[in-house]
């Protein structure tokens, strides 16, 4: 049953993600394994999740849930993604002092952080093909926009929502009005 599958997928994602962007590779894996989302839709959800309130991971859960099974799907996916919070984190809250001094989580993160960096680079490389060569051939306009966005984000410290709005406007002009490939 799709609701149970969604829940289980997001339990897996929840327990193996450690905040923010680190959830994206896991979501990409789980969504493509089940054919729930295409790489294009994953790009879209990253952008949408950055523009709307709430943590990225839960926004992805809502999007994926609704797209696959409507509102019940969204609830199942969110509950799945929240399972570590409702179980492990509750335990940590009960034994807070003991947990704060324990080394096991920080030890794990020594390996999880570089693994997340590696996975994210992998996802970035595969999304490059989806986003800059949507029809199979490289679109110079898309590459140019990407470079512009990167410079704005890193050199001029423009906020993410502003960069997304600008890209949408440029997309309408360049792809819509001018009809560039």
């Amino acid at each position, binding site marked *: 049953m799709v609701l149970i599958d969604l829940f289980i997928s997001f339990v897996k994602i929840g*327990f193996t993600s450690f905040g923010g962007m680190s959830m994206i590779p896991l979501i990409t894996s*789980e969504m493509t394994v089940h054919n729930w989302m295409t790489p294009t839709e994953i790009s879209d959800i*990253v952008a949408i999740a950055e523009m709307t309130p709430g*943590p990225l991971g839960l926004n992805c859960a809502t999007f994926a849930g609704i797209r696959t099974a409507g509102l019940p799907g969204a609830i199942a996916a969110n509950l799945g993604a929240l399972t570590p*919070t409702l179980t492990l984190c509750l335990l940590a809250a009960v034994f807070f002092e003991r947990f704060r001094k324990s080394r096991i989580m920080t030890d794990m993160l020594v390996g999880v952080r570089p693994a997340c960096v590696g996975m994210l680079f992998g996802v970035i490389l595969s999304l490059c093909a989806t986003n800059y060569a949507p029809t199979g051939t490289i679109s110079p306009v898309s590459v140019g926009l*990407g470079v512009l966005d990167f410079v704005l984000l890193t050199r001029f410290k423009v906020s993410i929502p502003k960069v997304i709005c600008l890209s949408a406007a440029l997309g309408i002009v360049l792809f819509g009005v001018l009809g560039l490939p």
Partner: protein
Amino acid sequence: MKRFREVLTLFLQFMQFGLFTFGGGWSIVAQMQKLYVEDKHVITSEELLDLTSVGRSLPGTMIGNVAMLYGYRVYGVLGGLACVFGMIIPPMAVLAVITHFYTLFQQNPWVAAAMGGVRTAVVPIMLSAVLGMLKSAFRYAPCYLVMLLTLGLYLFLDVNCVYLVLIGVACGIVIAEYYERKGDAGRGAH
């Protein structure tokens, strides 16, 4: 009855936080700092920092974890649940509406053109996030190997990321334990 009303207040406060949390989890911590540390003096700034660092080190959504830890601290299990669900309901409602319209207008040529532009921003956004993670990701030299290993497994063998994280967990414990035994004086220096 008083207790019920207080838990309800907590729920409503976190609904408000949830509605104004954009991007990462840090904005909610900033809002908690303002309301609970500076205005109401429920907890101290150090306690909030402790909650945040434990919340960050646990799997799952960081702010979900911070909400649970804070709620439990002030009103036990019920408080924790009130904070977590209060915080997730508004973004879920907003995104449900957006997803509905996304599905409706996906095929519209103007929307498609706008999304084509937006998609060009996704790789730069992710890239700048990864660049920000580089500083804290490589505490010991073998961490670079872990990164190369996971990148290779992802790209060439298409291994599911769930397993890649588990590999990271195992490597982390081994690496940290090794350097701990070696008596690395640099441990704890972030």
